[in-house]
């Protein structure tokens, strides 16, 4: 528990649905330690994305407590939440969400622009991040010119460039073929090992599940199973 970076206690999340409400998460208790490579697994609608969004401070719990890197997500102001994301969290999305009119370099540089780095520092960090994902030859390309696999690698570089403590990846392989999926997963495994970054996935992709060292199964908004692989 000493090194836990996420602590979730009695989390419920419900959404208003017309006059009633729909509860997507019920009484979740979980904690994750530094350097974990874990994922939420479950069928569509089981609440994976909802849980990931709350951990990412993009959404707030309805009840319960979610502590991320010492910040209680439900109690953060918009500014504090933005700061937590800016400084410590990386996001990887199913549809990459790259800025189409910006070059690969500019896309990866973006998170650094929000932090106070000098131009040369930014340059070095961006080039390092692109080296991790093997895209140093595409710095000047724009996302529409890249393949899906390349786009997701740019997104990984963008998430990793500021060396966040925690990366949240929602279905990162859903739009990729098998070869590309394995490629980006191996990249993330390597980054997890080398940089001690914690990775949290939301997925139902067997290929992803195969790489996870901890599998949290969700079913209808509840934890069904929590499997930790011993190495």
């Amino acid at each position, binding site marked *: 528990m000493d090194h836990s970076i996420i602590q979730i206690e009695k989390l419920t999340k419900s959404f208003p649905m017309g006059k009633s409400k729909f509860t997507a998460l019920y009484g979740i208790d979980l904690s994750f330690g530094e350097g974990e490579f874990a994922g939420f697994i479950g069928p569509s609608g089981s609440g994976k994305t909802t849980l990931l969004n709350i951990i990412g401070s*993009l959404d707030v719990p309805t009840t319960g407590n979610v502590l991320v890197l010492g910040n209680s997500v439900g109690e953060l102001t918009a500014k504090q939440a*933005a*700061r937590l994301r800016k400084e410590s969290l990386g996001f990887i999305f199913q549809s990459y969400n790259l*800025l189409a009119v910006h070059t690969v370099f500019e896309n990866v540089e*973006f998170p650094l622009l929000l932090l106070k780095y000098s131009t040369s520092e930014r340059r070095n960090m961006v080039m390092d991040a692109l080296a991790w994902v093997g895209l140093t030859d595409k710095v000047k390309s724009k996302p529409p010119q890249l393949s899906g696999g390349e786009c997701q690698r740019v997104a990984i570089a*963008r998430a990793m460039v500021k060396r966040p403590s925690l990366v949240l990846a929602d279905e990162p392989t859903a739009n990729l073929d098998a070869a590309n999926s394995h490629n980006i997963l191996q990249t993330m495994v390597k980054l997890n090992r080398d940089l001690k970054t914690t990775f949290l996935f939301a997925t139902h992709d067997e290929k992803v599940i195969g790489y996870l060292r901890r599998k949290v199964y969700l079913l209808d908004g509840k934890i069904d199973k929590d499997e930790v692989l011993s190495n």
Partner: protein
Amino acid sequence: MKTAIKLAYRNLIGAGLRTWLNVIVLSFSFVVIIWMKGILVGWDRQAKSDMISWEIGDGQYWHKTYDPFDQFTLQDAHAPIPPAFKAGIKNGDMLPVLISQGTIYPEGRMQSVLIKGIDPGQDILNLPTQKLDTTPDIIPAIIGTTMARTSRLKVGDHVTLRWRDANGTFDATEICITNIFKTNVPTVDVSQVWIPLETMQSMLLMPDEATLFTIRDSETTQPASENYKFMPVKTLVADLESMIKTKSVGQSIFYVVLLLLALLAIFDTQVLSIFRRQKEIGTYVALGYTQKQVVWLFTIEGAMHAILAAVVGAIYGIPFLIWQAKTGWALPVETSDYGFAIAETLYPVYSVGLVISTMLIVMLATAIVSYWPSRRIAKMNPTEALRGKLQ
């Protein structure tokens, strides 16, 4: 802020054709506003300087009952030249003018006119009064081109002039048109006949009398007189000024519409991009922007249209505006019917203040229409924005 500007710039340029269409429409507003306002300033200056050089000099003394818009008081609006004015008249710094009503009969028709007596040797006004010095046997007269057109008189024509003298007795004589002058100032042209002052004084039995005095320089000559009140240039051009102001209101409707069209296009672009770019908005938030910062980003992006428009407008606008200032803008209508001083060609005059105030107004307006729809971003749910599901 620097980051937002950089990002906004990239996004805007990245949007391509749509941006440039907006920018071009907006740049029209810039150029047209500056041009139209410049025309008005140019007109104002031209009209005033024409009035000064053709009619009012550096101010006038008016007989206390003289009112150029009242024909009935004109009969009494004359008095002997005050002794205090004599010196100024003698050395040519004051110009007496006697005004009375009369009638001419060109080709048997009847036309009522103002007879104005003026010293043929004067050099305060541009009127070609030296032409009143030429014919000793018949009374010489000069008229303007508009008067010549309405009366169909030509140089050398003789025409009967009838007037009432100081005793109220009618009398008539022949006059000869010795010159037709061209002027932009209708108040020395329309329905007016200029004859030598001394001739007129004896015709009207008003020896040594005058209605008004035009002075050369208000700094030096300011003698007082109880029969005459001094009218400074400012007062004499006040009507012209208020008329130009009225024109400028009518004119601004034109460019306000143009500006509104440009702003509407930008507003539309903003509304559309906020709708279409939800995922991008969600991404900015995920990467660490607050929603307020994203509002700013989109506002800056929209407002930047105005900056690009200023640049684009400068590219074609500066040559156009300079060319206009040089060659002028020929009015498409017959100007002499306007009833006020207006040249056939107007030369726009642009000031730094005009350019800067236009830029500020356009930029502010653009910023507002950019900000207005962007406010919605602050109310978005970032997770829904990321899914692109907002309506």
